[in-house]
């Protein structure tokens, strides 16, 4: 029974998609309710898994492995470890929240919207759970299509451009990844230039084989190239400078719920993949880019640094509320990269925690932007002013989210960021110190925004602006609670994955 839970969680939204499809077009309330129900089931299951997960073990749990495409040794292999269970919970949590956030503001094609959203959720859940490289890739790509339509059909005025840009960028990254996957597969049974045994796509198996003496997968030159292939694939998703330019466009045009998913989960797919594949499977390759000599030696940390500083400064320059949040995401993902580049327990734990926290916080931020947009129908920061007077609760929650995002201690954003920096400082002191610029600038743009939107005299245009309603509060409260709880007691999350991370640290510290 336990074995089936994970698969159930992955495929329930898919079933939901079919069910939604079968509903009549005009029963909109019903469609919404059904979609909500089908996103709540994975949430329940994810919570169950989260609680039931044996934290004291670093082993993969709940794994299921059944042959799928025998000819190519592809298995349906899913399982969770501390890392994936955390992100699964995040994904499952954001599912119903996004459905709720789409309750009123989807004006056309609600049915298709919900169906696509459910498909998207299956893709995301499957991605985080899959332990077969091929399956992993299929789920990775599976998120692409619904995302394209969700941005392209239900997005803002420049949605076509944003959607195709998103699609092309991601596809570009993923085809490079595909080459790398195939290369890994083809070498998976070669030891000392002799083929032994069967090829495999199985991730744990590949990780294990890469450590075998003389295995073709362990070759450092090979690892470097394959690392690069995967890296670019994931870098587009994260996004890492200079592959980031799709993100602001996609975010700005996407409907609120989709921005939430995009920032909350999709970006994490990049970093998760990086941890799961690049770090665990290719420690030599990682070594080349984090510890090597010369120009590329610190390139990964450098990219993290660039992301932080670049994202922060770009955010500072924005006048579009949503674009600002989007750029802030770029900055915050930089901390993740920096932490991962450090390759030590603090850095990686911090990075993983930051992944989760950023998922929660950026989701809040986008929801908040959406709330404001639904009311004022624009997002120009300078066009507001003094809303604090008119919408005190909204202002309060926004302040909480901003403070969490700018890394205020006591809220969850801080711990991940701090641990990442602590870890990174041990390896790259100078870059880390420079990266702290991001902290100041982060505070600057959030406070400035807070001032321009909420403080000062009330803009007379918005004297009648209604306060945030209960449904919207309902979407924000769980995230807010998580932000506070994890800020106060981060061990809840870190406990889940610290064993897995320790494992990882052992692999990468060669």
């Amino acid at each position: 029974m336990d074995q089936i839970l994970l698969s159930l969680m992955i495929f329930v939204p898919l079933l939901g998609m079919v069910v939604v499809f079968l509903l009549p077009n005009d029963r909109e309330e019903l469609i919404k309710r059904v979609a909500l129900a089908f996103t709540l089931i994975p949430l329940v299951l994810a919570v169950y898994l989260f609680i039931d997960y044996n934290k004291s073990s670093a082993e993969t749990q709940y794994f299921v492995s059944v042959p799928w495409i025998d000819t190519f040794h592809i298995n349906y292999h899913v399982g969770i470890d501390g890392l994936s269970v955390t992100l699964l919970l995040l994904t499952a949590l954001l599912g119903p929240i996004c459905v709720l956030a789409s309750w009123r503001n989807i004006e056309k094609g609600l049915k298709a919207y919900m169906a696509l959203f459910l498909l998207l959720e299956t893709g995301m859940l499957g991605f985080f759970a899959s332990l077969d490289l091929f399956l992993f890739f299929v789920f990775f790509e599976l998120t692409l299509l619904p995302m394209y339509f969700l941005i392209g059909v239900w997005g803002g005025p420049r949605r076509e451009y944003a959607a195709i840009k998103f699609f092309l960028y991601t596809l570009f990254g993923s085809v490079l990844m595909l080459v790398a996957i195939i290369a890994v597969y083809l070498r998976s049974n070669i030891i000392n230039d002799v083929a032994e045994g069967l090829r495999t796509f199985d991730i744990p198996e590949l990780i294990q084989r890469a450590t075998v003496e003389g295995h073709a997968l362990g070759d450092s030159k090979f690892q470097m190239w394959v690392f690069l292939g995967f890296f670019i694939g994931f870098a587009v998703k994260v996004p890492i400078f200079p592959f980031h330019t799709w993100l602001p466009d996609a975010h700005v045009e996407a409907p609120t719920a989709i921005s939430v998913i995009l920032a909350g989960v999709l970006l994490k797919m990049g970093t998760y993949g990086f941890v799961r594949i690049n770090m665990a499977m290719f420690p030599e390759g990682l070594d080349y880019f984090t510890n090597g000599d010369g120009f590329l030696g610190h390139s990964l940390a450098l990219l993290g640094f660039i992301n932080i500083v670049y994202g922060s400064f770009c955010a500072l320059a924005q006048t579009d509320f949503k674009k600002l949040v989007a750029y802030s995401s770029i900055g915050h993902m930089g901390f993740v990269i920096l932490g991962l580049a450090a390759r030590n327990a603090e850095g990686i734990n911090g990075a993983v925690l930051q992944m989760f926290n950023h998922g929660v916080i950026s989701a809040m931020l986008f929801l908040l932007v959406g709330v404001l947009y639904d009311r004022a129908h624009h997002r120009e920061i300078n066009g507001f002013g003094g809303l604090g007077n008119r919408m005190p609760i909204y202002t309060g929650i926004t302040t909480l989210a901003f403070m969490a995002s700018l890394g205020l201690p006591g809220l969850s954003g801080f711990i991940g960021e701090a641990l990442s920096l602590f870890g990174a400082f041990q390896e790259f002191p100078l870059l880390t110190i420079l990266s702290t610029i991001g902290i100041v600038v982060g505070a600057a743009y959030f406070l400035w925004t807070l001032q321009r939107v909420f403080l000062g005299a009330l803009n007379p245009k918005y004297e009648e602006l209604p306060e945030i309603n209960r449904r919207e509060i309902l979407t924000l409260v769980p995230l807010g609670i998580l932000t506070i709880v994890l800020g106060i007691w981060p061990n809840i999350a870190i406990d889940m994955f610290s064993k897995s991370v320790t494992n990882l640290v052992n692999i990468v510290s060669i």
Partner: protein
Amino acid sequence: MVVPLISIILLAPLAAFTIFALFGLAKRSFPRQDILSTAAMLVALGCSLYLLNETSDPKPLTVEWLSLGSITLSMGFYLDSVTVIMLIVVTLVSSLVHIFSIGYMHGDPRYPRFFAFLSLFSFSMLFLVVSDNLLGIYIGWELVGLCSYLLIGFWFEKDSAANACKKAFLTTRVGDVGMFIGMMMLFKQFDTLSLYGTDGIFEAVRTLEAGQIAWLSAAGILIFCGAVGKSAQVPLHTWLPDAMEGPTPVSALIHAATMVAAGVYLVARMFPILTPSSSLVIAYVGGITAIVAATIAIVRFDIKRVLAYSTVSQLGFMMLALGAGSYVAGLFHLTTHAFFKALLFLGSGSVIHAFHAMHAHHDEEHADDNEDEHDNHSLVHEHGSEIPPDQDMRNMGGLRRKMPFTFFTMLIATLSISGVPFVFSGFWSKDAILGGVLERAMGWNSVHHYILFGVVLLAAGITAFYMFRLIFMTFFGEPRNQEMHDMAHESPWVMVVPLLILAALSLPVVNKWWFKEGYINKPYQAHVHEPTHAQLRPDSKTGDTNFGFSNFGISEAEAAEEEGGHDTEHADDAHHGHGPAHTIAMVLSIIVAGLGILLSWLFYHKRRFTAESVATTFRPVYTLFWNKYYFDEFYNGVLVALTVWKSRLFAKFDLSIIDGIVNGVATITRAIFAAFIGFFDNRVIDGIVNRVAKVIWSVGGRVRRIQTGAIQTYLFVVLGGIVLIILIFRVL
């Protein structure tokens, strides 16, 4: 017993805030938030007082907060005499401010919120105080920053308030980042952020070798950066005067008594890791701050700004004391300053409250002004030069008869801060600082400390001058603005009672009953181990052991004996060091205080000289003071402009640089394809993807153009292709 007490101290205000937040989410508000918050603070105060005698176990609680495999970060409480005194100061001032606010904030539309924020602040401050590790301190540190932000911007409809709160947060955050880097350095070295105990940093720092001193100095200075920000030391002091945009009780609590003193507290806590060079940096920063702020205060007319600069200046005194190694003096001054400065602020609040009607009127006017400026947004604003009329001392005068209690209590505080000898606590603490610095100078024969002593002495004199200037302008003479004067009235009892209590606390006699002698004696572990910094110094004495509360009328000998019980060696050192130094310092300080008061009397009461004539005579100096040494202009003009410019540049980067590269690549591509196919169109194209897409697109167009529709062209391609294939593969 200790742990639950501390927990109550922390949780009571937190609970008050949480209740507010929960009600807020439900779109309601708790009926009597003011009572709730005040009660919470009183409970905390009671518990703090109980803790006075409970310092036997310094580490009552440690819990594992984060475990990352091999590394564990823990959180916990640390309770020693310093902690307890800070707890009492915070809870006491906070309680009084709460009570005062019940009157002062009465009628404000966001009345409950004010109390909730005060509660949150109190929680954060108390958390900072009791934390036993740097991470906890940092958390509390940032949280008080947040509360400061929220409270400065409490009247956020005013643009000046909105700007001030942002400025405060950002400026302190700059310092915090320094502190954070310092923490990272310590963490890298020691793998822990705990300060105390066998695995703490203070223990580990003793094992450092001589070669690592420079590194440790750097870490110490970086940690001190945090204090520079929070305690408004030069060069990050500019936020504090602007922070006066917040309600006056907030200024009293946060920006006079507690939060700004947190920096001093932090430096005192980190005492064991300070090396001589980092100490010297701290001392200089403190000294410069003391004199710079004092000189600026002379020329202010806004009553709150005078007090604000005075606060900055006094914080400089404390930093100087710590930097000079006068640990106890620094903390002593922190305590006394907390009371009399809170009193001064609350008193000024009472005065402002007296003009409350005008205040409301003014608000409307102000809001109108803002309309015009609404579009003119920039990252940092400077609104300091405009003085609200109800805070302008030039509108006051002769209030002593209208507001006797306010006048009386403020006078006590002014006497205290000015260092009028013997009956006022400020005299003792300031004297301890002066003595400590002079003693260090004499003991080490250090030029640095002589200079610092001179500076601080001058600053003390100026302090007396501008404080009495305030008193004379506000309470003496004839009313300058009759309309406002007529409206003024004594404040209600909820505001007066806290003033009286604080006035009492400005007298050493009152303090005596709860401070035991030598209660604060030395930095952590100083009496158990040789402190690190002591090892590293030319001579090993801490020098300040006998001063402080022992001077509240108790003989020095007794105090020395008390000390000697702990550490005879130090007591001996102390004895031969302090005698002459402190005597000289005391005499000098009395003289400069007297001079300051006298000058002030001559200028502002007797009108022997007019400030204007002096200002004209020393025009450049005056201008410098008036413009606050141009710090804000510098920041605005250079740093902020630079930042904004950089961010704009980065935003353009996408458009210009990346595109530039792409355009370059495209040009090459174009050249190649042009050779084969023809010419490419020459349009300017924006966006990396667009560019690539367009290149591909036009190649597509080119490829397409071969498809002329004429069949013989196709045949040419076929046969030409055949020839080419053969040639390429065989002949060439």
